[in-house]
């Protein structure tokens, strides 16, 4: 396996705040990797830098072996993103939204691809609906459909199951595992639901205060920190660092 994302000494400073502070990590091709950390750890800033929406202060990001400086179009045509916090235009129908994004990515045989994904995500029945009439679960499935339109090699998912009920969240996880298995897509995943991360992720990267804290499979981390589950590991890492900071101050 080779690294699809390589992040080296990534730094992002906003005024006096170091949102990301010398972060380095790799994400291996074909895996589902969880990027975890408490609120304000720098996950969203990191993801936005990986998407070229925020310019790093310093450090290096290589995606598919390339850098944004020289290969922006090439990189972005091979990745996609989905988040419940980012909506598709509500005043377009589901189908119009998919056509628009398919065209932006230059998808070949777009209508056939939409039909295929509509079946996969079971959204066919509401393709003609205006997007702002969709339920949260339907919106999640639409966002994921949009995210797979360009057959990406890398998918960045920011809390994809946030605000979903347990049933829809479970269905979404099943779909994500199917996508990864059938299409070999690499997924970088953020979530605050540690049960979900334990269930779905092959590998986990913990960050806090913008810094790398630890990495491993969920089972390895549970064993390493002598806890029962990943939720306790999360609390351990988050709180130990707070205590350390408290002592230092």
């Amino acid at each position, binding site marked *: 396996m080779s690294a699809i994302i390589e992040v080296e000494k990534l730094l992002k400073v906003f005024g006096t705040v170091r949102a990301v502070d010398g972060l380095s990590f790799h994400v291996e091709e074909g895996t589902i990797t969880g990027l975890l950390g408490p609120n304000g750890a720098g996950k969203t800033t990191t993801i936005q830098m990986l*998407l070229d929406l925020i310019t790093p202060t310093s450090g290096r990001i290589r995606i598919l072996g390339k850098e944004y400086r020289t290969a922006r179009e090439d990189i*972005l045509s091979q990745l996609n993103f989905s988040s419940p916090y980012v909506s598709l235009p509500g005043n377009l129908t589901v189908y119009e939204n998919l056509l628009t994004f398919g065209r932006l990515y230059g998808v070949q045989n777009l209508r056939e691809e939409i039909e295929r994904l509509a079946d996969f995500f079971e959204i066919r029945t509401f393709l003609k609906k205006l997007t702002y009439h969709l339920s949260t679960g339907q919106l999640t499935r639409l966002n994921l459909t949009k995210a797979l339109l360009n057959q990406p090699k890398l998918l960045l998912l920011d809390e994809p199951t946030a605000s979903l009920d347990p049933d829809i969240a479970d269905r979404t996880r099943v779909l994500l595992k199917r996508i990864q298995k059938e299409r070999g897509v690499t997924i970088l995943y953020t979530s605050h639901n540690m049960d979900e991360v334990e269930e779905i992720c092959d590998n986990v990267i913990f960050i806090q205060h913008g810094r790398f804290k630890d990495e491993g499979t969920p089972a390895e981390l549970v064993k390493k920190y002598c806890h029962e589950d990943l939720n306790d590991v999360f609390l351990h890492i988050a709180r130990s660092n707070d205590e350390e900071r408290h002592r230092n101050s």
Partner: protein
Amino acid sequence: MKLHRINALLIRHLYLYQRSFPRIMDIIYWPVMELLVWGFLSVYIEKMNLGGFNVVTVLLGAVIFWDFLNQSQKSVSIAFLEEVWEKNLLNIFVTPLRLSEFFVSTLLIGLVRLILVGIILAVLSSLIYRFNLFALGFALIPFVLNLFLFGWALGLLANAVILRFGTSAQILAWGFIVLIQPFSAVFYPVSALPSFLQPISYLLPSTYVFEGMRSVIATGSVSAAHLWGAVVVNAVYLLFMLWFFFRMFAYVKREGKLLKLEG
């Protein structure tokens, strides 16, 4: 630049126009109402025989030209704000779309609006006031093109300021154009302005267009000075606004404000 990406954004806006009553109002209702008010006023003034010149032609020509500028500026700003209001900026800028392709798509949306408004106003003014917009001849084309490009440049400026200061500055999408109207000599010659404002007026490409239009009506020939004046000043504005927008976009990326702009 990839045509399929420009096409995608253009069609995305056309989908919206199909079912958006406020956007259709923007193309039909406001321009037509303005045409009616100024048209009847022109007819009234002409009947009083005060001016000794063709009031209907001068005023209606000015109203229609002004609306071209107005439509061009608004279409650029509204196309951008549409993505902000719909929280869609992030979605489109994580596609391979280039900023230049985004600009060209807004330019084309503006062109579509301008053609629609032009047809509606030309037909109505001909039916109601017997005013022939095309009587201006070929001069019409460079003058309208200059207004169109100046409107686009003003739209870019408004968008750049919205990027920098967030949606609290969105009033500029409607306000910029009003700010320049008194100094553009739309309905009166530059000489009607106080002498200290006249040099300011000549800093606007729109002034050369409206002065040029009046010159065509009065003499029947195109004033090369007005035409080239508009082209040169416009070129300076366009280059500056493009540079300014790119700078503001880089600033927003550096400060991580693209998502916050939507919130």
